[in-house]
């Protein structure tokens, strides 16, 4: 007889932090902090966090900066496949 182990569900960290489209003002009616000027402009939190990280990396001393800037390099080539045929490679590093 097979006894399957009990399922252990671990909530993933992103799901704990993700606030989706709730604007902070709607959550705190008594605090008028517009921390989401980037949200109003259409940026996602991921993009905001990446830009903030980029700014801190560029402010480092030279000894640390070179190693840190390597983390910014993203090389992805994406191509859409239709009917079994590979389409053109798209540049994914460009903003839409």
């Amino acid at each position, binding site marked *: 007889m*097979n*006894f399957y*182990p*009990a399922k*252990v569900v671990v909530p993933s*960290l992103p799901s*704990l*932090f993700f606030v989706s489209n709730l604007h*902070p003002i709607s959550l*705190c009616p008594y*605090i008028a*902090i517009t*921390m989401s*000027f*980037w949200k109003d*402009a*259409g*940026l996602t939190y991921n993009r*905001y*966090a*990446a*830009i*903030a*990280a*980029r*700014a*801190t*990396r*560029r*402010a*480092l*001393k*030279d000894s*640390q*900066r070179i190693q*840190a800037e390597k*983390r910014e390099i993203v090389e992805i080539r994406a191509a859409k496949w239709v009917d079994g045929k590979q389409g053109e490679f798209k540049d994914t590093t460009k*903003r839409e």
Partner: protein
Amino acid sequence: MSALRLATRSVLRSKPTAASLRGCVRTYADVPADKIRLSLTLPHQTIYNSADVVQVNLPAVTGDLGVLASHVPTIEQLRPGVIDIVEDGGATKQFFISGGFATVQPGSLLSINAIEAYPVEDFSAEAIRTQLAEAQKNSTSGSEIDQVEAKIELEVLEALSAVAK
């Protein structure tokens, strides 16, 4: 056939069942009464891995807060700023983070996730100044996205310039 069943049996025995998991539940008595267990992690590096410290000051978006032992569980979004960590023995370490989240869990467990965090000494005032000038220029001209990005950089750099001498 019986050998196969024996093999699967032993594999199943090594997997945690619900009964054995109950015994492995982490108790709150693990952390010393006057300390918090801090984990400060970046995607590429772990700065503190379950280290017992005395106090941590965090720059949250809703305000600055200091976390001591037995802090109320909370999840805080952090703004670009400085984290002070008062370690056991009195030494204070300061890290500038670019942003992230801090979670205080029951039992004095604090985990801070940030994207970039460096000791305050690792920043160059010269680089901050040039960046600041450029960001200020970009925040008033250019496309809207460029302006917003410059505003984000301004937020980070202004917090940095207050700390890095």
